């Protein structure tokens, strides 16, 4: 019989016989298709993983990146607030130690609303410590967080600086944070920008979508009765209908549809991509899209 080449070459013939289908065919075709695969369900979906597993993978990835650096890389400028790679890792060491305390159900930690200020004493204490040793200290502390997280119920309440949450929320924010700083270090040391594996990306993006109303509320954005549909493309992508005021999705047409790559949307949430840099298709209320994208990084703490 004929091959693909034959049939692909006959497109002009096909175009020449194009004709409008019966008007009722559209609904029948779409209904038949959706009967085979429900709308909103991707053709393939990465496996689900726990937040503790996801965090452990992020720790491993981050350690792999740090282990590839030389002492001179530690001096490179990596971050506006934290300065060099060395000091950034020192900051993270303090974060891990604080997280261990938050995960200790018997430890009463005072409120520390400012993320950067809370880590400053440790950064100063580690300033003269060689880079390799700081890396080791961070790794030890991060492994401690992994262990503590596994021992703690996922719903155990934790106030993460000024965000009321629980162990799951903490680990999700930490996965975003480690990724953000991995991007900082990769950029500072001329390495390719890291991307978490699909399972983590799915976990991060689905939780981000759940957190959009909270992010808008946190920033004081008024979006009563408004809805958005996010079509996140890519291997870890998916479709998410979000009631922006935190209510129930009523099934009506969304006020805005934001179509963009799942990794890029998560990079915005991590504070590592400006919303204007998102290669997105916006359908509907563009102002609302701008508002939503401007606030989905509300929980990034750097």
């Amino acid at each position, binding site marked *: 019989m004929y091959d693909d080449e034959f049939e692909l070459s006959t497109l002009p013939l096909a175009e020449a016989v194009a004709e409008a289908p019966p008007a009722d065919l559209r609904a029948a075709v779409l209904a038949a298709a959706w009967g085979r695969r429900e709308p909103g369900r991707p053709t393939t979906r990465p496996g689900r993983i726990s937040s503790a597993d996801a965090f452990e993978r992020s720790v491993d990835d981050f350690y792999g990146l740090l282990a590839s650096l030389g002492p001179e890389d530690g001096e490179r400028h990596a971050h506006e607030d934290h300065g060099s790679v060395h000091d950034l890792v020192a900051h993270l060491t303090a974060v891990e130690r604080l997280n261990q305390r938050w995960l200790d159900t018997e430890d009463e930690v005072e409120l520390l609303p400012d993320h950067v200020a809370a880590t400053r004493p440790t950064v100063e204490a580690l300033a003269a410590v060689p880079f390799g040793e700081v890396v080791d200290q961070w790794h030890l502390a991060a492994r401690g967080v992994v262990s503590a997280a596994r021992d703690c119920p996922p719903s155990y309440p934790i106030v993460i600086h000024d965000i009321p949450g629980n162990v799951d929320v903490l680990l999700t924010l930490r996965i975003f944070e480690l990724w953000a700083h991995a991007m900082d270090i990769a950029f500072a040391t001329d390495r390719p920008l890291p991307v978490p594996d699909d399972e983590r990306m799915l976990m991060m993006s689905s939780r981000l979508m759940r957190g959009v109303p909270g992010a808008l509320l946190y920033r004081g954005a008024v979006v009563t009765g408004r809805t958005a549909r996010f079509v*996140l493309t890519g291997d870890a992508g998916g479709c998410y209908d979000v009631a922006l005021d935190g209510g129930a999705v009523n099934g009506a047409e969304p006020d805005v549809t934001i179509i963009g790559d799942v990794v890029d949307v998560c990079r915005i949430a991590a504070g590592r991509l400006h919303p204007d840099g998102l290669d997105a298709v916006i359908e509907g209320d563009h102002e609302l899209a701008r508002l939503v994208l401007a606030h989905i990084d509300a929980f990034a703490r750097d």
Partner: protein
Amino acid sequence: MKSVTATVETEYLGAMSERTAPGREVGLLARIRVGDECALAAVYDDYAPLVYGVARRVTRDEQLARDVCQEVFTYLWEFPEKVDLTRGPLRAFLAMIAHRRAVDEVRRSERRSRAETSSVELDVADDANGPETDVVDSAAARWRDERLAAVLDLLPEDQCAALRLAYFDGLTYLQVATRLGIPEGTAKSRLRLALARLRTLLDPEFRAVI
């Protein structure tokens, strides 16, 4: 005929418009993969006339054409990763699947007919469904015939005849050869030359200069 040919070629240029730009097709496929039903609806709106037209022309049966159309878009929804945009635009993929399914339908239908009435030979002539009585349908059909004639007019008569039999009647090389009373090798060669000419039509550089 020259002016109609020019119109057809202009339509091909038009088909390279924003609606069918590669970036848009990549985006629509990515959206279909993650389950965005609006993307499938958009692809349907863009390409249903192409798919339905091929199906109708090959099957010469409205119900079969509807079935083929449904199969094609359902297949795309279920298996969007089968589309390889490096090999051709989405519309070429959809036309290809529509053609294959339509030919399959015709063959199934022929087998059923042979089983039911073994003494009656299936008539596969162009007017198998009888004259179209509806004025609008007739006008649309005439326009389609003109467009098709314009495309086929770009081919020598012997290649055109072979291509008609192969594409619209779904005949094999051997069946084309038998129908035209030529050796199978000659049938193959005529089809190859016809396809080469059609490929030229598909080439954007060629389109740009006409």
